[in-house]
């Protein structure tokens, strides 16, 4: 049990660090990072950076070399992640393509499609989005209704997707549709990729409770997709989706926002009831609880990385992380605002102001407990997939999709 690299790992880490050192600036403090003036600018900067990675062989570490990847081991990816986090580099925009669409294309697309789409994905030239969730199909994703009808060699798509990050700047999308509403729920789905500039695709931003808009609704009105852009067999869309979803759960990471260290620092500089907050027993006990949770998540991650590096399947760490850190963030956000008493609700224009940080966490926590699987769905997953407990009773089992109750009517 140690925190040190093996010889090989150390060699890889050195190589990564040196390349990064030569091509990017080190962060100057924990709050330092890449900042872009706008989304457009950020996107441009990511494309430039990704191309640089690609040219030097650092793009898409887990991809096969033939498509522009590096064929790295899981532990190398972790080390790369640790090293790159020390540097100020642009990020975002590419995860869905490289993490979700790419792997699906590799499994189901034709050779020509792979040759056409994967290298631009790896170079960051083309941006992808994921069109899965629907207003009526969130936790129950397989309840999606967006309709696809085949006529000749062309599919016609009608329906609505929701929670699509980046739809407004994406070039391509992966899409699951219901091609046969009379088949059993998981059997009548078909999976495609499509050009987001296709006629009939309309993207509308969703305003979130924080006022920001990181997601979109996407409406499909008689959108045409050639059958050649189908991934997997007709009716096999659920199976194809599962490949993609595995990757999503891993991608939803820590809740960003104030954590133990921020709350600890606040308590050490802030009065409560006439004396320093850190001297208050209640503050100390809460901080201790959060420290133990944070520390537990950190070392669970290390255990997971160790399992990866031994070639074992990692545990359900990401589900645990999301449940624990989402709820912790909600508590810490309330704690921080409470500690500033009546002034805790004041809005500041400075993103680094204490209030802004806790308020951001206040909104963010509400979202994190839902996005990518609610607390409740994740606890179901832990109990079923890790502990081997039975599924909930199913009201939708063994009946055609269009006979499954979907409202009280």
């Amino acid at each position: 049990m140690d925190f040190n690299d093996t010889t090989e790992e150390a060699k890889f880490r050195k190589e990564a660090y040196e390349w990064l050192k030569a091509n990017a600036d080190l962060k100057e403090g924990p709050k330092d990072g890449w900042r872009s003036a706008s989304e457009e600018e950020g996107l441009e900067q990511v494309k430039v950076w990704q191309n640089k990675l690609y040219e030097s062989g650092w793009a898409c570490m887990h991809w096969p070399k033939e498509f522009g990847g590096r064929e790295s081991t899981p532990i190398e990816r972790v080390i790369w992640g640790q090293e790159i986090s020390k540097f100020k580099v642009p990020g975002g925009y590419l995860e869905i393509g490289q993490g979700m669409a790419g792997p699906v294309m590799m499994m189901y697309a034709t050779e020509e499609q792979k040759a056409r789409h994967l290298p631009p994905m790896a170079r960051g030239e083309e941006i992808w989005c994921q069109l899965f969730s629907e207003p009526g199909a969130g936790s129950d994703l397989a309840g999606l209704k967006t309709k696809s009808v085949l006529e000749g060699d062309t599919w016609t798509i009608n329906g609505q997707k929701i929670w699509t990050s980046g739809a407004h700047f994406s070039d391509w999308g992966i899409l699951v549709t219901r091609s046969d509403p009379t088949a059993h729920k998981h059997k009548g789905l078909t999976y495609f990729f499509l050009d987001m500039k296709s006629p009939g695709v309309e993207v509308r931003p969703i305003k979130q409770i924080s006022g920001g808009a990181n997601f979109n609704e996407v409406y499909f009105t008689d959108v045409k997709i050639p059958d050649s852009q189908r991934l997997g067999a007709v009716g096999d869309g659920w199976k194809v989706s599962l490949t993609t979803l595995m990757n999503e759960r891993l991608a939803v990471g820590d809740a960003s926002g104030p954590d133990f260290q921020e709350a600890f620092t606040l308590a050490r500089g802030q009065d409560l009831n006439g004396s320093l907050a850190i001297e208050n027993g209640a503050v100390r006990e809460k901080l201790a609880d959060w420290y133990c949770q944070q520390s537990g998540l950190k070392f669970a991650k290390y255990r997971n990385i160790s399992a990866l590096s031994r070639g074992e399947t990692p545990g359900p760490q990401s589900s645990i992380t999301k449940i624990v850190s989402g709820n912790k963030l909600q508590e810490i956000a309330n704690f921080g605002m409470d500690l500033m008493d009546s002034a805790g609700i004041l809005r500041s224009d400075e993103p680094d102001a204490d209030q802004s940080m806790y308020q951001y966490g206040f909104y963010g926590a509400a979202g994190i407990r839902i996005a990518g699987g609610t607390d409740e769905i994740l606890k179901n997953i832990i109990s079923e997939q890790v502990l081997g407990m039975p599924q909930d009773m199913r009201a939708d089992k063994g009946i055609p999709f269009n006979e499954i109750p979907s409202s009280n009517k």
Partner: protein
Amino acid sequence: MNFEFSAEQIQLKDIARKFLEKEDSVKRARAVLEGETSYDEELWKLIGEMGFTATAIPEKYDGLGLGYLELCVIAEELGRSLAPTPFSSSVYLATEFLLKLGSEEMKQNYLPKLASGSLIGTFAHTEGNTSPTEENISCEVKDNLINGIKIVVPDGDVADFTIVTAKEGNDVGLYLVDLNSDGVEIVNQQTLDPSRSHASLIFKGAKTITLGSANEGWDNLQNILDRAAVLFAFEQLGGAEASMDMAKEYAMGRFAFGRSIASFQAIKHKLADMYIAVELARSNCYYGAWALSTDAPELATAAATSRVSASQAFNECSKENIQTHGGMGFTWEFDCHLYYRRCRQLAANIGSQSIWKDKLISSLERANQL
């Protein structure tokens, strides 16, 4: 024994509820949240016409001369409907300060207009990012002129006058300042709940009128805060119950996996937990209402109990309401976030949960002197 509001009080509550529903109070809260106005002037005027602002003011000052139990049921409905008005500042605080501590002349000057709602008062107390104490108040009064800054004053930008805490010598006293007078600068402040307006007040030699005797200022303040805490608790209770009702309503109609999500135990038990929190809060609020209306010696204990309990219930219900809604609860379009925000605004308004828990135990220590 009858630990329930009277038939008349329940009727009043029902009237208030229907009135606020008819006037689309929640929609108005959203409009204020999304717009540029500080509060809904029309709704405020209608509330005045309904006589809600006059509830606990004696008839001789043009009030209705009803009691605090009546004010409690109105507060609950205002909380349920998120009414975007300066009601709490003007009625639970400014009016109470004048009723309890004002001279006869001040009462005659101010109360009739407060009763009609034509005058709006507020209370300015907080000066920094920590709870105000007898030591850390730094606004100063000398020769009846006040200097200093109050950084977060609810309705500070819409009120006509404010009650303010300040030091004269070593004592914290209570003063009334006309906000239209010289030496007052008002700066709008944005908060996480824009459906309620806030401002900071900068006093540069503004004129003050002293309220009550200076050396009892701090004790008087505590008493008024206790009284207000009960009324705030009823607003919180109303908000908590509204959030619970929203969650239930949504869960009943939302289907997943072929059935209403209200049939899943995770959701059922979440709602049961909300219900329990609301029932405990309601029962404690009734205790607070009784103590407030009878000026009982237990007021400090009862007020802190209702405040703590109602804050907890609103927190639980407003956050789990979003959770029950899933992704929809996270959208601007749904009303969940209005309650989530208001929950924080009300929790901050007269001091944090830690402070009220501490007050509760202190008052129990006093009541149980060893």
